[in-house]
């Protein structure tokens, strides 16, 4: 047979094998040529399965730089040639227009675009090109991390400006984090890039959890998807082959702390502050959880209405750090490695610092470790104290889940519990009968809870409550306080508008009747900082609460019993001598340190009627 014929048969068999046919089948088709074909087909197959060799990243990158530079030269030359020579007057304008048409102008404009701008998709596309040209895994991961940080900055800026967080920035964030995680998944746990990526993913998940209320309505599905994606990426980087699905976080996120108890019916279910929470391998930090520990959990509510812990930390009650504080105030200055709030310089990590800006009102958690106090986390605070309304009273219902939020009726007021509400069930259960302090912000007709704290006080009366808020004036007699209408005590003179008042109220039908009222802060609250923590020491003129020592003056108001070991909230003002307490609210009747008291089965407590301190007359 002529060679050309065998060459054709050989080619046909090679093509058939490339399409998946076996060598044997091909040889059976041409038995008379099988002996000649077999070694040739095997040789072709051997060469075909040689793996392609990846170019060295450094060489490819250097070559790209030359390629790109040449492309830009060519573009400039081309653009210059297009300038209409016959119209010299408009050369400058034409050149600019061509530059824009050629993409330079658009690229620049896009690089400045924010998530709600039309050019934002162009910006994301340009960033994608950068990922392509990071040829090594390390460079690629660095680029993805950098881009994820840009997304974080964009989200922070949106939240700062009270704008909704749209779906594209969420998708882009989840996309970049999960891609970076995929690259480093198989690396050792102590690999620096893996550690960096894991830290980033943890911070970004925390950020997303904190901005839930800023997510636009149409982006809620993307939000759930992004949370699920980032959390799953974190699990995989931890070597846990589990997945969190968007449906698992569909109905929102809640943060809760309290004593953890194991369910008697299901190994993977724990109760914390009275809430049943599924804790399993998908709960980061769950491996060391022990019954009786004080746990702090970020829990998600799934479409099946079950709560699942995403992240948790736990410690023995006796290990709770005494020297920890929460400070709320405006950022006065930013220094290298520190932030100044209320005249105090607070050390803070660079990672936290980069998202802070001067003038922003924040709530910062400070913890003392190894003798020095440093900020460990923060979140945005209301614009001023006057925008906060505090309700203290007995819970009249259990938490009622409604879609992504829950409602709770406390002290006669319906309060909305959102994903960003911090639920502190350290001293009792989050259920009907609990005596509770709720810091709220008014959103239209809704009172939205920022923090819920179950208190440890005795003798609470279900028909009484304490309301603390800004006096807004009178409407045909009743006082307007933080949006609530309250009938003032008989003969009480209204304070100046803006004064922060604390009123003990009772309900008469649908009306709120104040039994007592007093001013606790003048209208000017601009330099006031709010701090909370455990009372560590009490002296006549000085209290140490958490990490901060407060000076007491003759006009300092104290509510509650001064008990070392109880929790307190202090409104204070910096002055030449340090920080002077203006108002102290002692939250608990008894010390909750060093050993926390276990909540009673019903959570009911006795009334807090024995107020002490120096009352200040209304209208001072």
């Amino acid at each position, binding site marked *: 047979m002529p*060679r*050309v014929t065998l060459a054709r048969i*050989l*080619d046909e068999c090679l093509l058939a094998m490339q399409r998946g046919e076996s060598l044997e089948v091909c040889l059976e088709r041409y038995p008379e040529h099988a002996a000649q074909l077999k070694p040739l087909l095997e040789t072709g197959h051997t*060469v075909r399965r040689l793996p*392609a060799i990846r*170019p*060295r990243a450094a060489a*490819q990158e250097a070559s790209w730089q030359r390629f790109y530079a040449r492309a830009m030269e060519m*573009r400039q030359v081309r653009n210059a040639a297009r300038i209409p020579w016959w119209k010299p007057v408009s050369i400058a304008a034409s050149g600019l227009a061509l530059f824009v048409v050629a993409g330079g102008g658009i690229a620049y404009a896009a690089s400045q675009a924010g998530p709600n701008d039309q050019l934002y998709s162009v910006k994301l596309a340009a960033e994608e090109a950068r990922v392509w040209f990071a040829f090594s895994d390390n460079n690629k991961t660095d680029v993805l991390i950098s881009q994820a940080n840009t997304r974080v900055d964009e989200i922070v800026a949106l939240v700062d400006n009270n704008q909704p967080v749209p779906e594209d920035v969420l998708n882009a964030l989840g996309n970049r984090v999960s891609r970076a995680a995929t690259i480093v998944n198989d690396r050792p746990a102590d690999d620096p890039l893996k550690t960096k990526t894991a830290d980033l993913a943890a911070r970004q998940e925390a950020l997303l959890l904190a901005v839930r209320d800023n997510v636009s309505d149409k982006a809620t599905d993307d939000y759930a998807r992004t949370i699920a994606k980032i959390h799953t990426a974190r699990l995989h980087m931890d070597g846990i082959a589990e997945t969190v699905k968007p449906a698992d976080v569909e109905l929102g996120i809640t943060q809760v702390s309290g004593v953890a108890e194991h369910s008697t019916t299901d190994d993977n279910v724990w109760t914390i502050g009275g809430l049943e929470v599924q804790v399993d391998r998908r709960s980061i930090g769950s491996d060391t959880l022990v019954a009786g520990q004080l746990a702090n959990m970020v829990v998600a509510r799934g479409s099946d209405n079950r709560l699942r812990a995403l992240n948790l930390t736990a410690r023995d009650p006796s290990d709770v750090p005494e020297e920890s504080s929460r400070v709320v105030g405006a950022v006065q200055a930013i220094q290298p490695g520190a932030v100044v709030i209320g005249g105090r310089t607070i050390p803070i990590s660079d990672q936290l610092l980069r998202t802070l800006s001067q003038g922003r009102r924040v709530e910062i958690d400070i913890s003392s470790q190894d003798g020095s106090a440093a900020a460990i986390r923060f979140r945005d605070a209301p614009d001023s104290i006057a925008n906060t309304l505090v309700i203290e009273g007995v819970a009249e219902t259990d938490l009622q889940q409604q879609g992504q939020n829950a409602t709770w009726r406390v002290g006669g007021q319906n309060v909305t519990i959102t994903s960003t509400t911090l639920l502190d069930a350290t001293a009792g259960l989050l259920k009907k009968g609990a005596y509770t302090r709720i810091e709220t912000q008014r959103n239209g007709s809704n009172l939205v809870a920022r923090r819920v704290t179950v208190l440890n006080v005795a003798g609470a009366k279900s028909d009484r409550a304490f309301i603390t808020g800004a006096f807004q004036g009178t409407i045909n007699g009743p006082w307007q306080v933080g949006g609530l209408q309250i009938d003032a005590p008989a003969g009480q003179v209204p304070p100046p508008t803006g004064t922060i008042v604390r009123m003990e109220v009772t309900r008469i039908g649908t009306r709120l009747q104040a039994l007592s009222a007093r001013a606790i802060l003048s209208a000017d609250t601009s330099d006031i900082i709010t701090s909370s923590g455990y009372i560590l020491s009490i002296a006549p003129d000085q209290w140490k609460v958490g990490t901060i020592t407060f000076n007491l003056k003759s006009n300092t108001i104290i509510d509650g019993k001064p008990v070392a070991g109880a929790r307190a909230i202090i409104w204070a003002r910096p002055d030449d001598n340090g920080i002077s307490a203006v108002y102290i609210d002692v939250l608990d009747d008894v010390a909750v340190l060093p050993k926390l008291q276990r909540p009673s089965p019903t959570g009911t407590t006795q009334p807090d009627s024995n107020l002490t301190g120096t009352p200040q007359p209304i209208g001072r």
Partner: protein
Amino acid sequence: MVAITIANFMDRPEKLAAAQGQMSRVTTSQSLYEREMIQRAQNMDEGALAWLYQVYYPKIYNYALVQLGDVAMAEDLASSVMLKVLESLGNYKWRGVPFAAWAFRIARNQIIDLHRRRKRRGEVDLDVAIATNSDYDPQPMAELALERSRIQAALLTLTDDQRQVVVLKFIEGFDNGSIAKILGRSEGAIKSLQHRALLSLRRHLSQDAEAGA
């Protein structure tokens, strides 16, 4: 096939992966996607240029490395070819010649030029140098298998046309039509070259195996 635009896939890695997968096997039938990207690259669109580089640099490098057997030379050649592709991009026209075939033709011409220059300078012929040095390891990377060295050495014993056919078909994944356009030969000639190349390769690989036994 529906054209995929940059905006469509930029933030969807799965689409990007699929698009790149489409490009992993070069065929005479051009995808609309590739056509769109080339047209954009001709307009100096940065995203399309990035795509062009990302797809073709590794292919050209691999093509050069197999034939030159030297990492540094292959890198230089791939870089030089990509610049030439960029500078000639405006001349490329859709007239039945796939872009990949057009780009590889540039690569092949540069490899021929390189050999000519080396011969003019009186340098030792690369084929001989590599073929006579059985210990030669041109690729220090970990994934270089012993088999690759053997095949690479055997490839260098083929004639230039035979080697081109083997590399373009079995390593780069071109079909006969594209190879014919790159080499300027008929498809029938390509089949004959392929046959002779595999015969010769088989013979050298067998001898090599016997020598090593």
